[in-house]
């Protein structure tokens, strides 16, 4: 089976001796929506930098759509589109020129490049800004411009490094809608993000990297199944009586007694909580997770 991305024993040691990657192994299937998560300095950006030729690896093997980057990096690069974390386009170029120039670097003739530039700039709502110098764009527009630029050679894999950092909610949602459509059309998406709820909602598979090592690599579903306990908050229609108790659960009641925080361990039932509340004539108006489930796992896997 040919993977979109296959990394074996990837190591990176910087000149100052810092070991950023200590033998990373990773496989991403074609068509996947994959998240690479990790705290700051874990090795996410170094890994992505190696994939797209911005960082020299110390050792290890990387194949992109079956092309070994040591044997044919130019071919491997054709498969990749990269949206970096930092803005890295020429700020004095117009929006249109940024995209068309990038197409030229991939050997795409100007006529085709201009057609594609129009297509992607329209899709990303930037067409009316095509003649504006890119430095004049807002932060969200600059990020969309980098997506349009990364797509200009219609890559099989799109790598997004913290694409929604500093982007407002509305724009973030429209961006994810766009990326999801790309994935539905067959593009493999690999993203790093600090918004773990995004990874939970969007991604099928996930890898967690910590201190240069992959500490977890599985499907989001499988990972969430490993959660040993979750905390739920119940909002009630009336104040909780003083005599209420849930012997086998860890419970915290809010000062106004109108909400209840319950830690539910694996094997324990939520129905029991509802039944006990019913007994004291309290009804649940709404219920939510105290924190993102993936966030709990992430903290657990990366602490220490």
């Amino acid at each position, binding site marked *: 089976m040919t993977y979109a991305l296959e990394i074996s024993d990837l190591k990176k040691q910087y000149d100052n001796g810092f070991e950023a990657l200590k033998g990373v192994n990773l496989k991403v299937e074609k068509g996947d929506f994959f998240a690479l998560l990790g705290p700051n300095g874990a090795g996410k950006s170094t890994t992505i930098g190696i994939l797209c030729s911005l960082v020299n690896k110390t050792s290890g093997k990387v194949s992109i759509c079956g092309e070994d980057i040591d044997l044919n990096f*130019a071919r491997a690069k054709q498969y990749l589109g990269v949206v970096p974390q930092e803005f890295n386009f020429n700020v004095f170029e117009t929006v249109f*020129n940024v995209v068309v120039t990038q197409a030229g*670097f991939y050997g795409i003739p100007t006529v085709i490049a201009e057609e594609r530039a129009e297509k992607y700039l329209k899709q990303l709502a930037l067409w009316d800004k095509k003649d504006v110098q890119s430095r004049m764009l807002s932060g969200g527009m600059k990020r969309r411009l980098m997506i349009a630029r990364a797509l200009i050679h219609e890559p099989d894999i799109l790598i997004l490094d913290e694409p929604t950092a500093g982007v407002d909610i509305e724009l973030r949602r429209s961006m994810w809608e766009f990326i999801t459509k790309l994935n539905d059309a067959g593009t493999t998406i690999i993203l790093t993000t600090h918004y773990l709820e995004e990874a939970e909602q969007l991604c099928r598979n996930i890898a967690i990297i910590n201190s240069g090592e992959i500490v977890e690599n599985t499907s989001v579903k499988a990972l969430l199944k490993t959660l040993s306990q979750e905390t739920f908050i119940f909002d009630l229609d009336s104040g909780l009586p003083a005599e209420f108790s849930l012997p086998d659960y860890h419970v915290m009641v809010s000062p106004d007694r109108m909400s209840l925080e319950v830690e539910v361990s694996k094997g324990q039932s939520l129905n029991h909580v509802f039944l006990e509340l019913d007994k004291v004539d309290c009804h649940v108006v709404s219920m939510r997770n105290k924190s993102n489930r993936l966030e709990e796992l992430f903290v657990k896997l990366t602490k220490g």
Partner: protein
Amino acid sequence: MKNSEIWIAFYTIIRREIRRFMRIWPQTLLPPAITMTLYFAIFGNLIGTRIGEMGGFSYMQYIVPGLIMMSVITNSYSNVASSFFSVKFQHSIQELLVSPTPNSVILLGYVLGGVARGLAVGFIVTILSLFFSDLPLQNLFLTIVVVTLTSIMFSLGGFVNALYARSFDDVSIIPTFVLTPLTYLGGVFYSIDLLPQFWQNVSLLNPILYMVNAFRFGILGVSDINVYWALIIVCLFIVVLYCFGLNRLNQGRGIRD
């Protein structure tokens, strides 16, 4: 990449470089035109008339080839040095590095961008010089070959400078402390025959002397040195700088990590 795709990438880099220096023409094309006009007016016209002939030509005619070459050298060098350092500085070099464009094409693209500016400035200065003096143009082919090779050589020099540079100061150190003195001492304003033997020998260590004289030979037909030596030296420098620059680029020194 197929050959046709490599050509498109090459053309894209050159087009972007030309667009860059044309967009900021008040910083790139206008200053050398003004500076050289002042040189022609003050050194050539005012002072030159009192100096008399040099090498069988009026002083104005004698210094014109050197001044044209001086502007070609400084503009070729500074174009590549500042342009490549700028893309490094604002990280837009990553646009090229993530693409399949071969490193040799990146290097040649930037160098030809520098040559384009060097020759554009050389052309402007030549036109301006015609307002002050006649240029006999003894050997058009040699003149074009020498100015082009010199522009390539200094564009390569600018590229290597930009690869090493870590700040804008690093980009201006070589032009200020190396290129300008070497140019002034490279026979632009005088024939080395005027110097004592010792300083004539020292001058022969200055590569710019060879380029200025070869260019002057193409225009006026007079030179302090053997023109073939000049061509050999320029070609040698081009080969060495190209190999060095490409090697650094392949290693990613100064642009990756």
